C-alpha cells in the first residue's frame, strides 16, 4: 500500500492559521505546549490573538469560555490527557452553557509513546462522552484533520477534538465532504464490519486487506465523530454482516466499543473490541512497539474478525 503520510498536528496548526486569516474571531489559547501542538504557527502570525496562559489548564478553559462569551471562537490546546482531565469541571460548565469553546487534545491515545502513562490519554473520549452537549471528533488522518478543524470552527458549540502526535498515512477521501456526526465507509465489505477511529482506521484497512486474501470481506467504517453517535447509521452499516469489530486507541470502557455496542443493542451480532484493556500505558522508544504491546495492531484486528466469524 503506497500512501501519503501527514502529521495531524502540523495540519491542525496550518489550518488554524488559514482560519485565522479568514476569520478575526478565531483566538488560540495554549498551556506551554505550542511547539508540540503546533499552535506556534498561529502564534507567529497572530500574536495578538494568541494567549499563552502558562501551565494552567483550568484557567485556560474558563478563559476560553470568557472569550467565547465575547463573540470569539476559542481554541484551547494541550495534550489530550491534560486538556480533558485537568479541567474536567471547567469543560463541563462550558458544556452547560453550550459555549463556543474548542478543546483540542494533542498527543492523544498512546501516541506520546515516550512520555509514559502520565502523558498518554486512554480515557479522554470516555470522560468527554459523558458530558451533555459535547461533540467529540477524532480525525483518522491529515486530510480529515484539516476538514474537521474547519468544521469545528464553523460549529457553534463545544467541541473536543483529539489529535495524534505521529505521522499517519492518509486513508480518507480528499473529495469527500466532512460532516459532524456522519460515519463514513472507507472500504466496502460484506462479511464483517469494523468500526474504527483515528490511526486505528489505517490498522483496520490493513487487516481488511490481509483478510481479503483469505476470502473474508471486511467493511471498514471511520467513526470520526464519537459524539453524537448516529445510531441509525451504525445500525445500517452493520446491516447484513455476520459480526462486528470495534478498534480504538483508547480504553475499552466508554469509548467506541461502548457506543457501538449500545447502538446495536437488541441485535444478536457477535462483537469483539480491539482496545486498551482497562490499563494504563507506559514508555516505549517506538510508537508501533507500544501499540503492539497493548494489542492495537492489524494482526489483532484480523484475529478479532476471525473470532466474530466463529
Amino acid at each position, binding site marked *: 500500500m503506497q500512501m501519503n503520510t501527514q502529521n495531524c498536528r502540523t495540519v491542525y496548526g496550518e489550518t488554524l492559521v488559514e482560519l485565522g486569516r479568514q476569520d478575526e474571531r478565531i*483566538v488560540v489559547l495554549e498551556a506551554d505546549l505550542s511547539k508540540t501542538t503546533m499552535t506556534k504557527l498561529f502564534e507567529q502570525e497572530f500574536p*495578538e*490573538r494568541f*494567549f499563552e*496562559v*502558562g501551565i*494552567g489548564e*483550568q*484557567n485556560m*478553559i*474558563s*478563559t*476560553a*469560555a*470568557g*472569550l*467565547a*462569551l*465575547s*463573540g*470569539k471562537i*476559542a481554541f484551547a490546546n494541550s495534550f489530550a490527557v491534560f486538556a480533558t482531565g485537568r479541567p474536567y*469541571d*471547567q469543560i*463541563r*460548565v*462550558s458544556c*452547560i*452553557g*453550550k459555549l463556543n469553546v474548542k478543546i483540542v487534545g494533542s498527543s492523544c491515545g498512546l501516541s506520546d509513546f515516550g512520555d509514559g502513562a502520565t502523558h498518554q490519554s486512554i480515557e479522554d473520549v470516555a470522560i468527554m462522552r459523558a458530558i451533555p452537549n459535547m461533540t467529540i471528533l477524532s480525525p483518522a488522518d491529515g486530510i480529515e484533520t484539516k476538514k474537521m478543524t474547519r468544521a469545528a470552527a464553523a460549529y457553534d458549540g463545544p467541541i473536543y477534538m483529539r489529535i495524534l502526535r505521529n505521522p499517519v498515512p492518509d486513508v480518507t477521501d480528499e473529495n469527500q465532504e466532512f460532516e459532524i456526526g456522519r460515519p463514513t465507509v472507507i472500504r466496502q465489505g460484506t462479511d464483517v464490519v469494523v468500526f474504527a477511529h483515528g490511526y486505528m482506521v489505517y490498522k483496520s484497512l490493513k487487516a481488511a486487506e490481509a483478510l481479503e486474501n483469505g476470502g473474508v470481506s471486511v467493511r471498514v467504517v471511520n467513526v470520526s465523530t464519537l459524539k453524537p453517535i448516529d445510531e441509525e447509521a451504525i445500525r445500517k452499516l452493520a446491516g447484513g454482516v455476520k459480526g462486528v469489530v470495534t478498534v480504538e486507541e483508547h480504553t475499552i470502557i466508554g469509548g467506541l466499543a461502548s457506543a457501538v455496542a449500545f447502538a446495536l443493542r437488541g441485535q444478536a451480532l457477535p462483537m469483539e473490541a480491539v482496545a486498551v484493556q482497562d490499563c494504563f500505558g507506559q514508555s516505549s522508544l517506538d510508537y508501533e512497539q507500544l501499540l503492539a504491546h497493548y494489542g492495537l495492531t492489524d494482526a489483532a484486528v484480523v484475529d478479532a474478525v476471525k473470532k466474530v466469524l466463529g
Partner: protein
Amino acid sequence: MSVSAEQIAELQKAAKKLRFDIVNMIGTGKPGHLGGSCSIADIVAVLYFHKMRHDPQNPKWPDRDRFLLSKGHAALAQYAALAEWGYFPKEELGTLKELGTILQGHPEMRRMPGIEAYTGSLGQGLSVACGMAMAGKIDKKDYRVYCIVGDGEIAEGQIWEASLAAAFYKLDNLVAILDKNLVQATGSIVQRYDTNPHAEKWRGFGWHVMEIDGHDIGQIAEALDEADQVKGQPVMIVAHTIKSKGVPFAEGKADFHHGIMTQEQYEVARRLFED
C-alpha cells in the same frame, strides 16, 4: 468624593431593597444563600445602580460593562438587582430554585437575561472574566469586567492561575472585588482554612490593590472610580464585609451560609428591610 450624600442615601435605599428581595426570595422553609448574598448587597447596589453601563432593554449590548459573580451562590443579590432593573418580571423572584425557573441555585446565562456566564462552580468566574477582558482588549472596547470572588472561594487554585494571567496580560479593564466576609460554609475562614493575608497576596501577584469597608457606599463608589484610573494592571478591591450583613440573627454565622429561616426569623428579617 465620587458620590454625593444624596446619592449615597439613594444607594443605601437600593441596597436595602436588594436585601428585602433576598430575604423574600428565600422566604421560609427553603434553604438559600442568605449570608453571601447579603454581604455583597451594598457592592452590587453601587455597581448596578451607579457604576455600571448596562441596558435592561438590550442585555447583550456589546459595550455594556460585565458583572460576574465568581462566587455564584450569592446570586440572589444579582437576581434582585436585575429584577429591579426590569431584566425580567419581579414576580419571578418568588420562584427561586423551583423546577423550570430562571432563578437557578447558581446563575445561568441562557436562562436569565442579564447573566453573563455560568458561575458557581467555585474558582472559575475570575478566569471567565479574564477571557472577557482579553476580548475587550482585542476588540478595543472600553467596557469593564467586574468580578466578585469570595474569601473562601480563593482557596481554589484556579483563582491564582487567573490572577497570574490577568497581571501578565495587564488586564486593567478587569476589576475584581474580594467579598471578605470571613465565613465559609463550615465556619470561620481563619479557623477552618485561612486564606489570609489577602491584600499582600494580590499585590504580590501583580494587582493594584485597594482595601475598603464593603458596606460603605461612599468607599465602594470611590474605589470603583479609582479603578478606572489604573493602567497596566488588574484591580483588586478587598472589601471587608459581614456575612448576612443587616440580618442580626444571621450576621457572621456559618449556619446562614446556606440556611433555612424559621417563620419567626423570616418575619424579623423582612420587617428590617421593609420601607
